[in-house]
């Protein structure tokens, strides 16, 4: 009897222990797949979005940061004051923030970061974000004074970009392979071509994240992406490359599909200086020749929001101007005739690799052919696109998604590749930059949207959707992509 009791006791203990073990082992690791591998891990010296996806808010933090809904909130800066004339920002830094190597983050690091970004030999891909900075002073270890040459209502927004994260002077030499930041996760290992692993930073100044380790895996082939998800090799696919497979995931209880928006305005970019697109009637004809919904359905399997101007529909200041360029092939033909092109004309359509461009381009070319415009499709790689289209401006039409947040300002740059030159628009942007009142800013932004819409600068197609797939138990993922980021700090597994 005693023996029996002992055995029962032992079994109970064992069962209890294993239960406890399961409790303690509640999943705290995650494998997140993304399509592109970062070239290196320094977000302050490259444009690759894959870098930000891995490091933004995880390894590196800036003075301010984006939240999943696109709002900008304090990051390493606890608060800031703006002088009355709008040119001096005094940032109060958080106390007790350390880098992963144990050194303290202070005002000198902020000064170093901003000076490095604005320096003569700076390799910052978004140097324009810092263009107005005249001087940076460390008043005391936790106070930084930034003086701008002119007021810039967007300054806290600019500092939230991945290109403006705070870096330590000592870590710069090896930052590309061994990034050292202040974030809730520290860099662990990179198997190039395969994966990057991050570990929880136990000394993080903020709330401890639920995850202990996170692995980013790089799967570029859409078929392989589908297989990896289906075989449950990966827990999350950040931006799933094959929209045609989403209904299948949606119907499978093992998975959840997250459809959100990005900052990517997908446009039929038009060379405003090349004949015949220098004629507004021709551009207007092109705009009316395009059936946006057909492109969204055909190229993106229905995912995407039609836009009538270069502005994100989820932004509060967005104005729906799709009516200005409604699908109307008859009107397009009439406009072409009015411009002197009764028999149409020939042009080129350069298509970079993403499927929105390659698939969308086929449909656009067919729609243009309906009204008599022959667009010769030229498929190009990104490097070629940058060289011949973007820098060489040797194109008629091209399809590209402009993924930078709040980038309507590019229309004020006459040397920008679509070469729109409007003094009205430039004046409007100058006024906007000098304005800090939110309501007035919204009004000016609305006016700007209307101006480029009715000048038919480009064909405005749709806002690129963000299509995430994840296992059903994963919580806290960003559905939207206000910037390229996979914020690990909020992610957890449900029971």
């Amino acid at each position: 009897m005693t023996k029996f009791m002992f055995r029962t006791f032992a079994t109970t203990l064992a069962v209890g222990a294993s239960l406890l073990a399961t409790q303690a082992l509640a999943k705290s690791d995650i494998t997140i797949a993304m399509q592109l591998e970062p070239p290196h891990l320094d977000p302050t010296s490259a444009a690759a979005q894959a870098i930000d996806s891995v490091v933004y808010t995880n390894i590196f933090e800036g003075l301010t940061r984006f939240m999943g809904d696109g709002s900008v909130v304090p990051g390493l800066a606890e608060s800031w004051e703006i002088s009355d004339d709008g040119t001096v920002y005094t940032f109060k830094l958080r106390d007790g923030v350390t880098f992963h190597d144990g050194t303290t983050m202070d005002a000198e690091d902020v000064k170093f970061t901003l000076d490095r970004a604005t320096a003569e030999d700076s390799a910052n891909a978004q140097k324009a974000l810092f263009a107005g900075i005249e001087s940076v002073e460390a008043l005391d270890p936790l106070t930084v004074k930034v003086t701008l040459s002119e007021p810039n209502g967007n300054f806290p927004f600019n500092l939230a970009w991945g290109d403006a994260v705070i870096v330590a002077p000592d870590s710069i030499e090896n930052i590309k392979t061994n990034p050292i930041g202040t974030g809730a996760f520290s860099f662990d290992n990179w198997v190039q071509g395969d994966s990057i692993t991050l570990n929880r930073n136990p000394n993080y100044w903020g709330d401890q994240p639920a995850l202990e380790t996170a692995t980013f895996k790089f799967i570029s082939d859409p078929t392989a992406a589908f297989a990896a998800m289906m075989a449950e090799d990966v827990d999350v696919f950040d931006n799933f490359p094959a929209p045609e497979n989403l209904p299948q995931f949606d119907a499978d209880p093992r998975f959840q599909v997250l459809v959100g928006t990005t900052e990517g305005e997908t446009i039929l970019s038009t060379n405003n200086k090349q004949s015949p697109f220098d004629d507004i009637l021709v551009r207007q004809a092109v705009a009316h020749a395009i059936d946006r919904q057909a492109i969204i359905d055909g190229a993106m399997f229905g995912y995407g929001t039609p836009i009538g101007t270069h502005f994100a529909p989820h932004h509060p200041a967005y104005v729906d101007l799709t009516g200005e360029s409604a699908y109307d092939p008859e009107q397009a033909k009439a406009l072409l005739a009015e411009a002197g092109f009764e028999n149409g004309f020939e042009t080129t359509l350069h298509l970079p690799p993403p499927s929105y461009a390659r698939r969308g381009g086929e449909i656009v070319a067919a729609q243009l052919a309906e009204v008599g415009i022959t667009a010769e499709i030229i498929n190009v790689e990104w490097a070629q696109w940058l060289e011949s289209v973007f820098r060489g401006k040797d194109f008629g039409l091209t399809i590209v998604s402009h993924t930078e947040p709040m980038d309507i300002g590019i229309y004020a740059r006459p040397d920008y590749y679509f070469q729109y030159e409007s003094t009205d628009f430039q004046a409007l942007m100058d006024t906007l930059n000098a304005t800090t009142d939110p309501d007035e800013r919204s009004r000016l932004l609305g006016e700007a949207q209307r101006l480029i819409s009715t000048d038919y600068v480009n064909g405005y197609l749709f806002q690129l959707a963000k299509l995430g797939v994840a296992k059903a138990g994963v919580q806290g993922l960003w559905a939207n992509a206000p910037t390229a980021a996979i914020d690990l700090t909020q992610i957890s597994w449900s029971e």
Partner: protein
Amino acid sequence: MLRYALKRLISLLISLAVASVVIFAVIEVAPGDPASFMLGVNAQEDTLAALRAELGLDGSKMQRYLNWVGGMLVGDFGTSYTYRTPVSQMIADRLWVSLPLALYALTLSTVIAFPAGIYAAARRGKPGDLVVMGSTQLGIAVPNFWFAMMLVLIFAINLRWFNAGGFVGWSNGMWAGLHSLTLPAIALALPQAAILARVMRSALLDILGEDFMRTARAKGLSRRQALWRHGVRNALIPVLTIIGLQFSFLLAGSIIIEQVFYLPGLGRLVFQAISARDLIVVESVVMLLVFAVITVNFLVDLAYAAVDPRLRSRT
């Protein structure tokens, strides 16, 4: 034998020199500036110039060619533009995936092809032969990435015996490593095995008609003994040629399979480097592959001489 080897060696060196010029010229001529690719659409002119200087892209083409070749001669393959790590290090890392994969696939292909080819030759015209020949026809016709997708569908998604892709790394033990290379190796091996089996069969059939085979039978060997002792050995020459070609193909040509199984191998490195305009990586890897192919051919030439003494005296 020595003279033969020396002659082969000289032709190897000339091929390498010509290849280096062609590779450099072709890759440099293609449009696309690595610096502007890395810095994207908002980069300013001064930033681009700074990066180009940092990468050493501001020298003349001739100078860069000489730097590149000179570096390779002393084992320095340069530094990747995008990853900023030494190219030799990257290649070494990737070879640890690609080389075992190629060897694994080659072993599988040989293990399948030899018995199949010999069996078919021994049963020429009989149902067994027809079955083998029919399946090899199929094996040649079906592209390997389709095999790959079918394997993933069956063994990874449905049966869950393997991961759908990826490589766990040799640090997790040899078995784990081989396990994660199994599906890709099979996908690579099947079409190769089909080709090899057909070559084996037709080479054997040619040999079986030779006089010395009749002599072998006449001196009292059974069919089977004659086939194994004299037939297979003589059929090895064409088979070795094919194996040599296949090895080069498996090493250099697994780009698609590495994409389908997202393996961090050489093929994927080249693929990524081409789209990122990481010219130095593309040039060095392609050069290395050319080197590997030429060397394998050189070794195969030597192996002929070993298998067939007539080749030695002829030169």
